[in-house]
């Protein structure tokens, strides 16, 4: 799974993911997400390029969102497919990670 990071205004970090968030994809981005959650409080994740989300991917996202939330930060996801959004809702991850329709809404949710 590929990950790119882009600095936005207001100290917001945009993380762009590309590929399958299966066990292999989760292994690729687990450490980078840990680093991000340890140093940032406002993160939006572009999910448009994510074609599959398994529970191992939810684990990575929730771990990062919880670390950010515990220091007053917030994570938002935008561009999620209906199947990925269904997984996030089913696990309740959407209660601590905002599911936004587009990048502007995601940025608004974390600032």
């Amino acid at each position, binding site marked *: 799974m590929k990950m790119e990071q882009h600095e936005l205004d207001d100290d917001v970090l945009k993380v762009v993911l590309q590929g399958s968030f299966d*066990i*292999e994809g989760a292994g690729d981005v687990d450490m980078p997400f840990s680093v991000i959650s340890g140093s940032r409080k406002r993160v939006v994740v572009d999910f448009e390029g994510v074609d*599959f989300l*398994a529970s191992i991917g939810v*684990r990575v996202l929730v771990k990062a969102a919880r670390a950010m939330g515990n220091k007053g930060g917030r994570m938002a996801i935008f561009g999620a497919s209906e199947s990925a959004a269904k*997984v996030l809702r089913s*696990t309740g991850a959407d*209660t601590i990670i905002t599911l936004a329709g587009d990048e502007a809404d995601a940025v608004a949710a974390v600032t």
Partner: protein
Amino acid sequence: MRPRVAERIVLATDLSEVSRLNAWLADLFGRARPSGEVAEALKLCLNEIVANTISYAYPDGRDGRIEIAVEPGDKRWRVEIRDDGAPFDPLAAPLAEPIHDLESARIGGFGIKLFRENSSDRRYARADGWNVLSFRCP
């Protein structure tokens, strides 16, 4: 006319095998062309069950074997998964409570819940040292 013969793959108990499983599924979906609903449910169920089996069914570290048979259907596909690991009935396992808030947020344990939400006609048996799980998707 869609193929009715069961498609099969045998996996070793190494987490890298999940990638081989997903490549096999992509090839199968390309040939049998299931609906989006079937494809999404099937891929999710197989990923969750196989990852769970590889991670927890062989605590002694021995090499194991996971046999998967998938039978395409018009609306629902039938799946059978056999493994020679420790006895585990995913139909009897307690389901993880969904996350409600930041304080109580657990970071894992959702695989069995997602499997059960995306499958039907689930059956489990322990036979001759094998876990035998069958279900339909969705």
